[in-house]
């Protein structure tokens, strides 16, 4: 079986970059494989994908050594436009991929470029729309589509050209869970129905590890692991547990101290279904609840909301008549489906939006009386896109920029600056350009820029989008530390695992009100949709258990 694509000793450096993005990478890609590419930000995943369709080096420039062959084409001589017939690439940002203004024109654009004849284009556009369930959106203007729909359009546009190799660069990182699932399901269907070769770079390991036939893990531009999912999982147990799905981590704890056991008992589950099956097979140990650490008592009220009605003029209100109290020391996860009003609600906390009815009091003062800049002293809001916060050339200047707005003296400013740098571990990044940093670092810098004034309430809107697992763990730890120091933290998130790990209280929004509001262990326990993998597995036996740190394997007496 001839390979679809091959990389031979590829070393590539972006122009002006200090380090190589790819170091001596050699790979062969066989037909019908589904390859999952993992790695932290900056590890070279994106570069690897772009090397396969010619963007590296022809679009980006730089220094390129080695050889990449796709079908019979050598990317040194073939340009991206030649390779577009054989290789398709779906990018990460739904908004920056489209060229045309309507869906059908967008799909036709690529086909026009390839010189496909007009009647054939009509048919291919139609079939691409049908296969991704987009028929009703045929004439829709792109500006009215959601992120998930835009990514489907991008995928449709790519598959319309019927490429042999389909590359996807973190396609779900900007999407909510439901849209992500739809996209991944579409990708799996493609693989099964057409036998297309797929290479998918992703962070959400728990969603796609079971789809893959092969896993590549990149570190600093080199391939650290190239194995089947099971072998990869076994490798990850040794030092990279954050890369495993939660149920795998749970079962990995059982392997502690044992050498890699033989096949059946040493297998790690990738899904809850797998895990349930394995639970039955495991005879020598059972999971038991670990002693939980006592929670902290909530402190003073930071934000009080009374009879709040939230929405836009002329539309149905998103929330009606809700009451809410937020206390110091709480870490609140705000969850709910897309469009339920979570982001809209939190934008009332600092005055960006005004309520239709009701009142909000921030540290006793009515938010309606304050300007947003004044409210920012007590309530910091970090939006979904950290890039929106960067207006200066270095991280240090960003922090100083915020501090310059504060009505305090220079000495206090210096204190606050040092404190935030320490708290968020930014010492090494102070002279760097914030835009040049990796995803997780950028979120940290944006968070520093917003919270350096020591506000009592910190709100984060979807901070974990596109974040690799290691950074998620760090962020969770930082937020917990802040609540212990007396702040109140609110996190709007879809990431149930993340919420389970750090939140003390969970509020679920939906249908105009709060569907649930209580301690994390209660709200996320036994839930139909908002529950963690570990909880789904164990909630009958061990109710209230949310993640594997709360579980210990007890060896059964033989």
């Amino acid at each position, binding site marked *: 079986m001839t390979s679809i694509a091959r990389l031979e000793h590829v070393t590539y450096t972006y122009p002006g970059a200090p380090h190589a993005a790819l170091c001596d990478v050699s790979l062969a890609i066989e037909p019908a494989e589904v390859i999952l590419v993992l790695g932290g930000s900056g590890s070279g995943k994106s570069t690897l994908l*772009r090397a396969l369709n010619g*963007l590296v080096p022809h*679009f980006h420039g730089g220094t390129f050594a080695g050889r990449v062959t796709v079908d019979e084409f050598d990317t040194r001589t073939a*340009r*991206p*436009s*030649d390779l*577009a*017939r054989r290789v*398709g*690439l779906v*990018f990460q*940002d739904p*908004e*920056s*991929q*489209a*060229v*045309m*203004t309507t869906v059908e*024109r967008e799909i036709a654009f690529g086909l*026009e*470029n390839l*010189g496909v004849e*007009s009647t054939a*284009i*009509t048919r291919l556009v139609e079939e691409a729309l049908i296969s991704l369930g987009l028929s009703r959106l045929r*004439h*829709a*203007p792109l*500006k*009215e589509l*959601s992120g998930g*729909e835009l990514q489907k359009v991008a995928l449709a546009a790519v598959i319309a*050209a019927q490429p042999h190799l389909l590359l996807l660069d973190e396609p779900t990182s900007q999407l909510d869970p439901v849209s992500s699932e739809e996209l991944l399901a579409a990708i799996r269907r493609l693989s099964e129905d057409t036998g297309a070769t797929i290479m998918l770079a992703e962070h959400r390991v728990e969603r796609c590890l079971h789809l893959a036939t092969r896993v590549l893990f990149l570190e600093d531009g080199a391939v650290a692991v190239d194995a089947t999912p099971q072998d990869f999982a076994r490798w990850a147990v040794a030092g990279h547990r954050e890369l495993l799905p939660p149920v795998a981590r749970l079962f990995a704890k059982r392997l502690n101290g044992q050498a890699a056991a033989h096949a059946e008992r040493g297998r790690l589950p990738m899904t809850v279904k797998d895990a349930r099956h394995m639970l039955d097979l495991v005879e020598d140990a059972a999971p038991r609840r670990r002693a939980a650490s006592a929670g902290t008592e909530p402190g003073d009220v930071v934000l009080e909301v009374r009879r709040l009605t939230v929405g*836009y003029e002329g*539309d149905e209100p998103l929330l009606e008549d809700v009451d809410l109290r937020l206390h110091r020391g709480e870490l609140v996860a705000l969850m709910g489906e897309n*469009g339920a009003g979570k982001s*809209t609600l939190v*934008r009332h906390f*600092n005055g*960006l*939006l005004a309520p239709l009815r009701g009142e909000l009091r921030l540290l006793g003062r009515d938010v309606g009386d304050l*300007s*947003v*800049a004044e409210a*920012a002293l007590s309530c*910091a*809001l*970090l*939006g979904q*896109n950290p890039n*929106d*916060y*960067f*207006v200066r050339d270095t991280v240090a200047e960003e922090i100083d920029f*915020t501090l310059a*707005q504060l009505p305090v003296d220079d000495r206090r400013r210096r204190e606050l600056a040092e404190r935030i740098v320490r708290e968020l571990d930014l010492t090494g990044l102070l002279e760097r350009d914030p*835009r040049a940093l990796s995803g997780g670092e950028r979120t940290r810098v944006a968070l520093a820029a*917003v919270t350096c004034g020591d506000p009592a309430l910190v709100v984060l809107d979807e901070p974990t989008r596109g974040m690799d697992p290691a950074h998620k763990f760090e962020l969770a730890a930082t937020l917990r530390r802040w609540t212990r120091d007396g702040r109140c933290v609110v996190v709007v998130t879809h990431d149930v695992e993340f919420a389970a790990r750090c939140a003390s209280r969970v509020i679920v929004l939906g249908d105009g009100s709060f569907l649930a509001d209580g301690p994390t262990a209660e709200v996320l326990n036994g839930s139909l949709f908002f529950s963690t993998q570990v909880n789904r597995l164990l909630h009958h036996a061990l109710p209230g258990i949310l993640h594997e740190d709360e579980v210990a394997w007890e060896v059964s007496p033989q």
Partner: protein
Amino acid sequence: MSAPATPALPVVTGPHGGARDAVAEYPVAAARPRRGRLRVAPVARGLARRQPLAAAAFVAAVAFAAMVVVNPVQVAVLLAFILAVLALSGHLRDSLPYVRIAMAVGLFLAVLNPLFSRGGLDVLWETDLGPMTITVTVQGMVFGITTAMRLTAVILAFALLNVALDPDDQLGLLSRFSFRSGLVLSLASRLFPVLSNDAARIADAQRSRGLELDRGTRRQRAGARVPLLSALLTRSLERALDVAAAMEARGYGAARRSRWLHRRPWRAADAALAGGAALAAVAVLAGLLAGQTAYSFYPLLDDPRPQLLDAWWLVALAGLVVPAGIALRRGRR
């Protein structure tokens, strides 16, 4: 085919490119997530159902005639015709912003011209203003009203353009004119809503970190927004690169390029519209070059009636009215 676009905000543009904008305060408009709820496109009516090229030719001919014609009665006839087409297309309400601005500027002209033009013999009122003498004459007044009507006719002709061709059609036409320039325009139209949202988000983000954007003098507020402009600039350039990478990944730049023709086939009504427009344009041009379109207001008003029987005028009217009647007929396309 999606419906003709109406200006989404109560905007009144003008020659100064939006100097008189009445754009709604953005946070409310931009923050509303227009996601996943497609507005149902209303059924296209009247002129919008015709082929974009035919409709564009028609509007061009009408605008040309409106620009050239000076005879007050002829101008009035044209204006009435345009209003009738707008009304029969069911878009009279959508063109209200245009009517408003036409009336505003027209009123100004109707007042300005009589005050500052000379040569009429039937004086109504005279006064001295420093070194100048202001003479208001009957001829001046008729001139003023006629120029106001002429400008209104031209502006409403463009209203007709916006009604008959939605932005998508306009983009399509322009890309037939020049593929690459059409592509630039399409890209810019694609990126404009995205960057507008970016702008709103960036402003909110900076407010959230304590930057005061809403209080202070105008100069302070404008100056506070400069860092935002910088951030938006960088953002838009990054998006430009992403889009360019996506374009190349989709094969842009390959040697042989085809074009997707997915228009409805031309119907008789379309051909009539385009043919009539061409005929009318030629007739008007002929009249212009032959000097027959001229009409003098000074020193005495010409008799407007003889020009109504000029050949060029009658041919032009026929070329415009007859196909419009066919095009606006209700029923099947």
